[in-house]
């Protein structure tokens, strides 16, 4: 499943759950309870709160482990021993991408920097979705490692506002099929 679709589904589900909770309470908010019912509701509320705390704790631990046990960003300070290296430089308002052809199936290390202001180096896959990104910052080189699975023409767009020519600051590179693929 495309990550963006998964995130969108989780967000809609989570927001809907919150909305359902509110709708339930709102429907009851205008109906007064007697003392016995109030005490019972308070007890139920405390039990539910403990369950909610437990559920959130499980989600906290589970999501942390699932998303961080393999850190999603390459080491920035050690040599990466990656064969395909692409140098990327942003400047108002163009990209220099050298070389502009890479091969699918093996990792590519993008070394991304900027000559002037902050830019955002975002790789758009042929389906129009972002595949990966990092910031292009003057004085720093960020190493973005990505393994392409689909050959095709990938579009690079700037995702950090950089002045008048921000939107048209677009480039492309080609991903060719993996050897033997």
């Amino acid at each position, binding site marked *: 499943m495309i*990550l*963006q679709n998964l*995130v*969108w589904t*989780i*967000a809609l589900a*989570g*927001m809907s759950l*919150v909305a359902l*909770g*509110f709708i339930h*309470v*709102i429907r*009851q*908010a*205008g*109906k*007064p*309870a007697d003392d016995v*019912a109030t005490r019972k*509701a308070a007890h139920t*509320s405390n039990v539910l*709160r403990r369950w*909610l*705390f437990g559920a*959130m704790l499980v989600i*906290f631990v589970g*999501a*942390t482990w699932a*998303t*961080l046990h393999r*850190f*999603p*960003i390459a080491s*920035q300070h050690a040599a990466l021993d990656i064969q395909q290296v692409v140098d990327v430089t942003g400047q108002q308002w163009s990209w220099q991408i050298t070389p502009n052809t890479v091969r699918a199936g093996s990792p590519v290390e993008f070394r991304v920097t900027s000559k002037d*202001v*902050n830019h*955002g180096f*975002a790789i758009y896959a042929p389906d*129009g*979705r*972002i*595949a*990966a*990104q*990092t*910031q292009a*910052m*003057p*004085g*720093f080189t*960020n190493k973005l490692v990505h393994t392409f699975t689909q050959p095709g023409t990938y579009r690079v767009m700037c*995702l*950090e*506002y*950089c*002045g*008048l020519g*921000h*939107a048209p600051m677009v480039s492309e590179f080609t991903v060719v099929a993996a050897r033997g693929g």
Partner: protein
Amino acid sequence: MAALTMYPENERLAGGNRAAFNLYVISAVALFVLMMLLGLIMRMGQATWLAVQPDLFYRILSMHGAGMVGTAGLATTAVMWFFLRAHVRLHLWAFVTNYVMFLLGAACLIYAIFVDGYGALWTFLYPLPVHGMGLWSPDAAAVFMLGYLLIGVGMLVFYLDAAAAIIKVYGNLGRALGLQWLFRGTIDPDHPKTVVASTMVIISNVLGILAGAVVLVMSLVNAFYPEMALDALLAKTLIYWFGHMYINATIYMGVIAVYALLPRYSGRPYPISRAFLWSWAVSTVFVTLVFPHHLLMDYALPRWFAVMGQLVSYGAGFPVFLVTMYGALTNIYRANLRWTMPSRLMVLSLFGWAAGIVPAILDGTIRVNLVMHNTQWVPGHFHFYLLLGVLPMALALMFHVIGQRAGALPNSAADRLGLPVYLIGGLIFTLAFLDAGHLSVARRMATHLPEWTGTDKVGSIGAMLVVLGMLYFAVRITVGLLRAPARGEPDEGPANTAG
């Protein structure tokens, strides 16, 4: 119990207090409408329904961002002042100084943007302000940053006055936060939630404003002496530390209205608890440490920094869901809540805050941020909890106050129509942003790819409804505030004075 009196004597607005409160509120609602109109113009431009040239678009975006953040700060400062002065002695001059500094700062921003052409957005991300490429000069950037400094100094004056007043009553800020009761001891049931929340805001936002002041002064020096270059990563880190805390402070100042007013409308006490104190103590730390989630794509930062951003983003959900939202819902459950505008707005605000946090937390995940950072997912989640969370908190107090002036709690047919228009518009507007983010539509672009304009059009329709709703609220509140005060309490039955 005094807390359940609808309009306690110590919250009465008279003389200078009334004039100052009116100035804050009327300015805020007028600015909200204007800034929303700017937002609508941008969305319609992206939808290709309106021709907006890129240079104008980015100037509008700069004004909209700075204007909305500043106005949210102005409105929620009025909320904090309104309730805090009932517990400690605040000086009116400090409150008015903040307002005057805000106006002076706003004048600088408007001049820099619409006269000098500044278009480096509200984030003034170094070194863009001095790289206008002929569209604006470093002088324009300097005027813009000077405007920020003036607004920040005004806020500091207000916070420092509030801090001094709190310390005078409670001894120190720790005791005002209730730290002495975190592990043991009998909590003083009269310890005001307003004081706890205000103290948290003072601690965190003073730190944030000072960080902002440091980077603003550094940037100003660079604007006039370009040979004194800054470290771009350090500047960005300080900017986001400041920006994140400033906008978050508006939530924590705004929610004071919910804590103070909700029990009056539900007729049910909303007592302070150890869980509440823990949540605010933890939030004080979290809101100060969570800002690295804005810097997850800056790989040059240490790994622990990014991990902290993710973990604290996750952790920040606990106090919001388990204490504020859950506590408020428990308070109104089967409580014979009176559905008038203030209570409706308070419930909406809690929903907006809690639901808006869901996409925010998701985006605070490093792996997710790799594909969502700087897409429209980001304005999607922050508009959700600002438009449907913070703004309704401030509006709830405004409607509450005009209820006293009118002699009846606000609940007219027009009110009952205006709120759904605002709510439905807000949902369409924010969900269109989130959907666009999920489709990888970039944020902050004057022109969009043809395949992106579908969500722009839907968002524009939502924005129109929001503007309509807000325009109604602004007129209603302004007229209500300028009305002569009614004598006595509004007649709304026993729930108003229960206890």
